[in-house]
């Protein structure tokens, strides 16, 4: 139950307030998670970051900078953004919810049915974060989203200011499986890869958000693809299914989720190989 509400003037004000609250505060962006029934976020103090000036999408020559408070609907409508991000944003099927939910909130939550995370991870986006040193000095830092995701607890006191997408050509594609468009997803996968000078896969990233089991990376399979260890997408399907951690729950059995993850990744991989879909 939320007891108090604070409107931050800027990013520094927000993180200072959070430190003052000694862990009891949470940043409030869109509110679609914090305020909803059954929220995964339990806090009695919220710090609104709606007015800190992070609600724009900017073209910055080599990168596209997306403010943390940019809503899913802004992502859908922006001509600056790659198709994979617009597609992933549309996984949030409710337009009204898309008007509220933010990209920063989605990353910070890192839910096991995250709409965006598998795609963002596969795309190798970078995050601009703000924090305070132990001495209380305001700092900003840029880091790979993979690092933020892997060491999330370490970033508990920081605020994601922006998401930075490199504008270079990269294949990224995502797929989501849910019973209805608004049901929680059983599985959402993201696949990203570049091509080296010889046209071979490089910098492959494969992630899956598996309901009940978190967001998973398939590093061994990435390496195997880059090392040309697989003969076909079917090999990838088998490998992903085998490596996927899953549990039985409302969204499906563990067997089903493993199967879906394998099918989805292999289908995307097949498209990558054939040069169809997914490119920026």
């Amino acid at each position: 139950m939320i007891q108090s509400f604070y409107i931050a003037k800027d990013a520094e004000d927000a993180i200072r307030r959070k430190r003052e609250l000694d862990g009891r505060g949470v940043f409030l962006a869109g509110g679609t998670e914090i305020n909803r029934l059954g929220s995964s976020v339990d806090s009695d103090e919220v710090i609104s970051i709606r007015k800190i000036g992070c609600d724009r999408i900017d073209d910055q020559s080599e990168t596209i900078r997306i403010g943390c408070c940019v809503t899913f609907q802004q992502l859908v409508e922006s001509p600056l953004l790659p198709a994979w991000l617009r597609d992933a944003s549309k996984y949030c099927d409710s337009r009204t919810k898309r008007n509220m939910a933010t990209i920063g909130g989605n990353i910070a939550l890192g839910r096991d049915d995250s709409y965006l995370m598998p795609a963002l991870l596969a795309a190798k986006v970078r995050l601009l974060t703000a924090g305070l040193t132990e001495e209380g000095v305001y700092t900003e830092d840029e880091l790979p989203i993979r690092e933020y995701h892997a060491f999330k607890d370490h970033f508990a006191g920081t605020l994601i200011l922006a998401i930075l997408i490199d504008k270079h050509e990269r294949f990224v594609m995502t797929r989501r499986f849910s019973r209805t468009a608004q049901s929680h997803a059983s599985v959402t996968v993201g696949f990203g890869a570049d091509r080296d000078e010889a046209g071979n896969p490089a910098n492959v990233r494969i992630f899956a958000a598996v309901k009940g089991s978190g967001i998973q990376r398939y590093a061994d399979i990435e390496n195997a693809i880059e090392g040309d260890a697989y003969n076909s997408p079917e090999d990838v399907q088998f490998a992903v299914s085998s490596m996927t951690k899953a549990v039985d729950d409302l969204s499906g059995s563990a067997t089903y989720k493993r199967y879906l993850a394998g099918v989805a990744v292999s289908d995307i991989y097949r498209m990558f190989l054939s040069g169809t879909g997914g490119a920026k």
Partner: protein
Amino acid sequence: MKINCVINGRTKEFEFDPARSLRELLVSDGHFCVRDSDDREGFAGSDTVVVDGIPVYANLMLAGEVDGCEIRTPDGLADGRRLSVVQQAMVDAGVVQSAYNAPAAALLLTWLLENNPDPSKEEIKDALSGIFIRDAGYEHYYLAVKLAREKIASGGYTSEIAPEFREELSVVGKVKPKVDGRQLVAGWKSYVEDRVEPGACALVLLRSPHPHAYITKIDISEAEKMPGVLTIITCENCPDVFYMQAGQGNPEPSPHDRRLFNRKVRHVGDRVAAVVAETEEQAKAARDKIRVEYELLKPVFTVEEAMASDAPLVHNGVVEYRAGAPENLDEYNKTADPRDGKVIYQFPLHGDIRHNIAAAAHGKIGDVEKGFADADVVIERTYQTSQIQCTPLEPHVCYAKMDNDRLVIHASTQVPWHLRRIVAWVCQIPENKIHVIKEKVGGGYGSKQDVLVEDLVGYATWITGRPIYYRNTREEEFIANSTRHPMRVTVKMGGRKDGSITAIYMDVRANTGPYGNHCLTVPMNACSKTLPLIKCDNMKFDVITYYTNIPPTGAYQGYGAPKGTFGLMMCMAELADKLGVDYMDMAKKNRVEEGYMLEILKGLGEGREGNVVPVGSCGLGEALDKGAAMIEWGKREVSVDPDWKIGKGFAMIQQGSGLPGLDHANCDVKLLTDGTFMIHSGGADLGTGLDTISVKMVAEVMCVDMDRVSILSGDTDNCNFDTGAYASSGTYFSGNASLKAALDLKTNVLDEAAYQLGEDVEDLELRYPGEVHSLKTGNVLTYAKLSHDALTGTGRGQVTGKGSFVTNDSAIPYGAHFAQVAVNVRTGEVKVQKFYALQDAGTPINPELALCQMYGAALKSIGHSLYEGMVLDADGTCLNPNFTDYGVPMISEMPDDFKAVLLDINDAYGPFGAKSISEIATNGAAPAIGVAIHDAVGIWIRSWPFTPEKILKELGRM
């Protein structure tokens, strides 16, 4: 915190807790139509508002965030009493039905058209993607946008809204605005929650965490001392009155097997205690202080578990009969446990609670064994349906108060008179002490046929004398409410190579859960609304209903028919496949036709011998022919993507129009002093347009415009008895009562006119716009003058009409639903590409409303077939008691091509030839889709829902 904002163009300043929701702020400012139907889930969209030009959910936004913002709410759309173009278009398109979300939808469409005056279908779909519409489906929302655009562009509509029927009639069969559409779409006070007065007390319930247990001790001493507590009701102090909550005819074909609170809890969520306090917070705080000790019992959840020889008994109390007790009853009761209470049958239902059997029925015609012996192929298949929630947007809600020595109940109900009877019985007071006011019903679908909250709220108000408001949470809607009975339907069917069916046997095993609401009639309906579709001399059925510890079941639109239709039509398709016969040819060869005597009905009465009647008006053949042509039956469709396979299916369907021989409806109509009319109808309009039907009856007969006729309905003090709006009875029973009242009024008006004019009745006629005309003399007497003179000091008194309708005649609606699906063989995904619902509703009195009800019901049943289903864990706790996890279909789940078609059939018994329309439309989707999946990929999915996982397993993919 001081919050400054602009609401609907007016500057406002609030001193308000910024951490509370925006919805709470707006409601506190009088914008009560910013509603909450999902307890802040951010799903259903009842709380939609526009903040700084962007639609948002007000429940998910904090009040403090709107400081400095501009806000629009749905109640700001109308200009005083004049609807906006969009609101009027929604009423005209027929989408304003139970309408709990209609104001929010109007706001979204207004916002859309302001920002995009020429939206595509995809853009309309996108705008409505965050709002849940259960009653009318979404299809006519596209039409509403089209109408609004036409009105804006040219000042009028150019599109056809719906086909019209009966050229010779003025308003019946014509597109006319629903009489209560204005208040509903505008967000004016309509529902129970809008009637709650300041100072009303709150009631909250302590519910059982266990599926099956005795309450061995309940200590309320600490709770009673808590501030604001007025009373706490438990099994220790509630009336020792056994009753049942189903609003059915009296005596009910369901056992009286519960008290307000029982010493035994029988499902997770069962009532343990009710706390009434000055405020909800106080009631909840006191609830936390109640201490309960339980003796846990082993639960049973499935029919199979309940059938087991060593199964724990859900009811093991004393059995009594009000009539027809068996001779060995004393012996039978020797093993009863008094802690289980009683099960009182009003008459024998073939129940045997010592084997968990709540009710049973058996019947046959011909010789099924001979029929199977005569067959070339005999198959036996078992089909399983799941527990489905009605999910009305407005949850079960009640506000009760005392008026002198009378209990006044504001109810959202389909059965005001059953409600009064049941509450009177529970309170042990006479019915004259109770006044039930049926408010607008924000979604019922059968679940508000059951008296699920009014029994308790009424009793608590009666004993405290205080006004009390109660509203189910969404979770309580799932765990303590009426749901569809899960059923196991085994069908054995024999057929010859020429496609004729030689014998059918249906074995229906139903799961009624903890109490026996509708325990006989819903499962029987699985046979009585399916077997009469088939011309077969040898048919037999066995129906057995079991008590278990799942959440309660009861009535839901379609009743038992969706389950029985699923079993019967799937089995027919499977038999056709085995025989190598085209399923359509088999359906046509074996379907009933007008005049065919329905002998099977003899054994399918509701607790008594049924009426054997011939098939009356019947559009079944036309539905099959037209549907087959529309979907191009027999033509194989091929997807460009080889992973997607396409198939087609259909199902024949029927329902009833009320319960002939059981139902009863009454209506009075008065001629007012200025020549206008006032109807008092017992009918309970639950949003479907029943009031509009009554108004049309009177307007048509009396030759006046509809706006000269007003109606009050469903009010037990001011209207006469009506059994209620269930079993598709509204149009046929309440509509016929209104027609009879109108005809009686016409007779009386002509009689009075003859007296006043000094002419013979035979020479007089009624004519538009509301006058009596003499064919002989040319004299004209306006209704106003006639009424005025009748009410002068020398007049003969007010002219009224009275209609009371009972019948043994049936008006059975028929139809066929067709589906084309695409199935992805790699992922198991199913997409309904086409869905065509063709129905014979007799004369559709309100064609645009009828179409929307068909769309709504069909989408519901598509949801039941593909997505929905309550999931219980091993301890009987519902794991998905919210919209998102449960999986209701939204606009994104709509078929790509969705068509509802009204067949032009005139019935002999319905008012102006009308039959029922809505319930039947829930029957076809499951078998139509199931058959289409088989046609696409060659597998039979025999259990709801047809999930991708089940399909993949059947395909051997995983």
